[in-house]
């Protein structure tokens, strides 16, 4: 390992973190503006031209706010918890390439910090850590709402991580690699979204639950738990949770783009490598909009139904999807590449069947509830 490489890593990490922090700030602005337009409002428009300085104003406000620590809180953990939540959000994108390599100062520099060969495993592992922060925050606050939020959060994340992991197996099987870079390269011809439509849907749903976004924002359900696990936090400690949540939004959008939407790939990206980050940005922008859109549109699912949904629908469906993908690959190996298209066909069929069964089940469940309750 030479000094130049070390320097390159440090510089690239710094740049990534700075990019993430800035994009977090402007993601909040984007969300508020988009929500406002959906809700027949105007949104923030006072700070700076068109409201563009709103994130700065928010940051200043949060920094100068008093930080309260409840008297009976477990102080050490209370302080550590926000950091523990933020850290994974910062480092999770280290394994995702933002473009192919460019030549800078006569040095071949790859866009992206590193591309380890078990990138997917790294992502899964790091993503799981953030739940500790939430549970510990809920527990150490010594507050019943926070506790309920923390418990909900841990149960939810464990449940949805299964489906999440299984939905990633599709791209892994198709690309025959666990490296994110190679998965992106494997989508040179066609995005995995088209070969793995159901996998992409499951991944998207599970990540919404994973980052606590509406309609799965159980742990911080405002109407029930006031703010869930971060009810006792204020000032910068609260801001850390806030940053972590929004960064996770960006992170999962980037990961979804990498796994299913060809990452930085797009027309002419091989000739002009700098187009790569641009393409990625556009994809992430659209995905983030979908997240905001969902938040503006859907009510929250009830907690017990959320668990039922995760275990009884999403998990079996993800399992079926893995199985069908494997079958499709064997078929393609045996009878020719055209049979790869049997994967989307079969999986969509399975999706429709499950959807139909679930519809039936929900209807009967509520009918029973009406007739048997009391």
């Amino acid at each position, binding site marked *: 390992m030479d000094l130049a490489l070390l320097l390159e890593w440090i510089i690239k990490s710094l740049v990534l973190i700075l990019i993430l922090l800035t994009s977090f700030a402007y993601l909040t602005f984007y969300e508020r503006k988009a929500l406002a337009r959906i*809700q027949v409002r105007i949104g923030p428009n006072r700070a700076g031209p068109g409201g563009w300085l709103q994130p700065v104003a928010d940051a200043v406000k949060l920094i100068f706010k008093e930080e309260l620590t409840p008297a009976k809180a477990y102080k050490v953990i209370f302080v550590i918890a926000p950091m523990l939540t933020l850290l994974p959000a910062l480092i999770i994108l280290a394994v995702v390439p933002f473009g192919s390599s460019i030549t800078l100062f006569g040095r071949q520099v790859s866009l992206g910090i590193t591309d380890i060969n078990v990138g997917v495993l790294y992502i899964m592992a790091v993503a799981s850590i953030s739940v500790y922060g939430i549970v510990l925050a809920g527990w150490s606050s010594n507050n*019943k*709402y926070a506790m309920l939020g923390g418990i909900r959060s841990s149960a939810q994340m464990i449940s949805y991580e299964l489906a999440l992991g299984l939905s990633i197996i599709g791209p892994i099987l198709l690309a025959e690699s666990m490296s994110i870079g190679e998965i992106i390269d494997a989508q040179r011809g066609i995005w995995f979204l088209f070969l793995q439509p159901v996998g992409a849907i499951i991944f998207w749903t599970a990540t919404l639950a994973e980052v606590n976004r509406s309609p799965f924002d159980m742990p911080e359900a405002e109407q029930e738990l006031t703010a869930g696990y971060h009810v006792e936090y204020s000032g910068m400690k609260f801001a850390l949770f806030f940053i972590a949540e929004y960064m996770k939004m960006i992170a999962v959008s980037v990961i979804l783009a990498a796994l299913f939407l060809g990452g930085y790939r797009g027309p002419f990206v091989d000739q002009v490598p700098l187009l790569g980050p641009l393409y990625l940005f556009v994809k992430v922008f659209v995905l983030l909009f979908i997240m905001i859109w969902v938040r503006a549109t859907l*009510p929250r699912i009830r*907690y017990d139904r959320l668990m039922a949904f995760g275990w009884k629908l999403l998990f079996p469906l993800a399992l079926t999807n893995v199985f069908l993908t494997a079958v499709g690959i064997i078929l393609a190996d045996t009878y020719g590449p055209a049979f790869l298209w049997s994967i989307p066909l079969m999986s969509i069929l399975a999706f429709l069947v499950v959807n139909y069964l679930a519809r039936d089940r*929900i209807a009967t469940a509520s009918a029973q*509830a*009406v007739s048997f309750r009391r």
Partner: protein
Amino acid sequence: MSEQTLVAEDIIKTRFGEAVEADGRKGYEGYLVKREKLVEVATALRDEFGYDYLSSVTAVDYLPEDKIEVVYHLFKSTGGPSLVIKVDAPRENTSVPSLVPVYPGAELQEREAWDLMGVKFEGHPDLRRILMWEGFAGHPLRKDWREAYFEEEGKPFKSRWPDGHVYRIEDKNPFAKNVDYPAGFDPESWVPEGEAALYAGMGAVDVGSNLRTDHVVVNLGPQHPSTHGVFRMVVTLDGETILKLKPVMGYLHRNHEKIGERNTFLQNMPFTDRLDYLSSMSNNFGYALAVEKLMGIKPPERAEYLRVIMAELTRISNHIFAIGMFLNDLGAYFTPALYAIQERELILDIFEAVSGSRMMCNYFRFGGVARDLPEGVLEKIRSLVVDRLPRKVDELDLYLTNNEIIRARGEGVGVLTPEQAIAYSAAGPVLRASGVPYDIRRADPYSIYDRFEFDVAVRYHGDVYDRYLIRMDEMRQSLRILQQAVRDLPEGPIQEGKPQYQVRVPAGESYGRVEGPKGELGYYIVSNGKANPWRYHVRAPSFINLTALETMAVGDKIADAVAILGSIDIVLGETDR
């Protein structure tokens, strides 16, 4: 009195004999029941005569006669006029048998009467103060109870009018002792034993399971985003399931009724706006009806139509807001609420045009309304009720009603059976969503509602989802009424006689009730011929509908408690009064 009631009087006389006696005072109606016989008479009235709906329980302090009279207003859930029964009790050690075993809906109302009037209800399961705190001395609605810095019995106070001095007596005497505590009460060492009793009652619940689990008592409120104000639900949770729930209220209490009894009759009109501040026109309506009944006047035709138009517009603005906020309670991040508020704003524009105020309208007067419609407003109302609102209601319906999550969150949650709904004195949408087609506009018509063609909206499951649907239905029916009213609105005067500042109200009692957006809004007024009402009681639907909250919520999840509360649609200004 009609022939029918006369016949009923004979029947009741022969049935109960000595136990009851017709109230012969001038301007009064109903029966005086002997204290020992009250439960027996009430049970018979419920079971044999069909008076199964206890609308209002209150008490009147007749200080000159040295007695306290507890007044019950009974109705048949199939419709018809009221049956009033009264029980006399001495002012010292006032006690009356509790009617909770017969009418569970009396629970909160009897607690209120104990708190404010000091009537002990023997046999009440949980007779604690409800609106006041434990360290409050006395029972404020008694006529001999006087507040700190007491000036006079009735307004306008001489200190301020007619001389025009605007000073308050407390300004002249700032260091006086202004708080009284009950005997033996030390606020410094006080621990809220009420709370302790509350929590003790909440603790141990046997769920009949071998798995030993700890129960958590959680306070939802008073500061909580989904209690729509400062309301508190103390819930015992087993995991996420509600085992017990107690409503705690009174955080917004300002003793509306005491202030109302100090006010002159007309001064109360703007004061009623502050009850359910989302539907001030309906509040005005009920109060105007009650006082007009006492005065024996009727408003002219045009005023009646204007009243109906305003009341129905209020209903739409209230329901559309209720639906929006209910969706918010379910966790839909403000989008439906803001679309609903957009329509509500248009209705408030009309209120502003006719009354000068968007929310605190103060539009009704005894024998009419305050102002006629300004130019162009009728056109605005017409285009709103004929064109825009029907479209928007349909739009809401299209996007919300069949939403998978809303159905999953609403169906089978918070069920109230028709029997329970009647027993708990639930009113309005809560009652009708449980399959009881009881709408005062049809059951006991007031104003000119008998002229309009509309259906009483009713739904049969009694769950949260049906309470949402019924508001949709009611908005459509209100639009029907509005379309007819706007079409038929006659020309003419808007006020019977000359507008008066000081009205002359003969002695007597009256109970005026309207079908407010949240349910039966009743005003019980007793006048002794003076400038101020002797007794001014508000039967607040938001308050009484909460009696059934625990029954609805037990067994459901904690998230459902929020949805159920949202589906009852309370306004704390009215609940706490």
